[in-house]
């Protein structure tokens, strides 16, 4: 199954991913990171794992894991 991993601790809240997400699946979290940013969070119901966020992100926040078969489901919000 396809997955998206968001390493929130790296996010600097630049907003490029939010602006470019055609699915409007990304938004800023209400909780601050240690660095003082409100990191991006993903609405897994809307995310189609297209990878645009990975492409535009300057800060290595996103990982997309594509898997054959199965529905895209479980989101992992990893804080490394």
């Amino acid at each position, binding site marked *: 199954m396809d997955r998206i991993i968001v390493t929130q601790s790296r996010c600097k809240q*630049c907003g*490029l991913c939010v602006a*470019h997400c055609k699915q409007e699946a990304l938004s800023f979290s209400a909780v601050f990171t240690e660095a003082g940013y409100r990191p991006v969070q993903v609405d897994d119901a809307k995310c189609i794992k297209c990878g645009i966020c990975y*492409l535009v*992100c300057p*800060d290595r926040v996103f*990982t997309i894991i594509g898997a054959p078969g199965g529905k895209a489901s479980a989101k992992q919000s990893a804080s490394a």
Partner: protein
Amino acid sequence: MAVSRKVPAIIDRETSFCPGCGHGIVIRLIAECLEELGQDNNVIFPLGVGCSSLLGGGLVTDRLHCPHGRASAVATGMKRCEPDVTIVAYQGDGDAYSIGIAETLNAAYRNENITMIAINNTNFGMTGGQMSWTTMPGQKTTTSPKGRDCAVTGNPIRFPELVASQFDVAYAARGAVTSPKRIATVKKYIKNALAAQVNKEGYSTVEVLSPCPTNWGLDVLGAMKRIEEEIIPYYPLGEFKKREER
């Protein structure tokens, strides 16, 4: 079914760039290209001074902080001693084109088999946004407080065009990181540049127009918009020397 996208291991750590800085995107693209070319465990980065030197902490590879502007000369020494290792000089516009123009141009002049990636954000980012040789006409910086007066300072330099038209180089291109499509194109250029080096075709360079929201006093999207509206018209995107022309 989604395509897997994972940050290459050699850069899979936090960066210390400002939010929305294009450096982080370009470095990831370089790392992806190295991985795809099988060079990610066969690479040395001579790094410029300026924001480009922040790459040092973000890279898990051989790398050396070079004196300001001299990365292409250092890269030359490295390549001559390790001809089968991919050498990527990573520099900003102030480093490569202002203080380092002699070393940068001469590496291209010799058609040294290295790749020079220059991040052009039209100012000296790290030291607080002073004018560089790529600062736009009329652009206000901390050292051109009334806007750059090209009658006094000279005109912004177009490096890829210069080496493509005057020197016998293998590859020269310019891209921008303003949109997913443009980012994908920059990646193609960087991959071409690195492939040219791996194939020992000679000097390759890619300049990337990149935002500096902090020093431009704009938000990230506003900075991207400025590149599209003001900078790209002066600095056209594209390949000025293509590999297949050789």
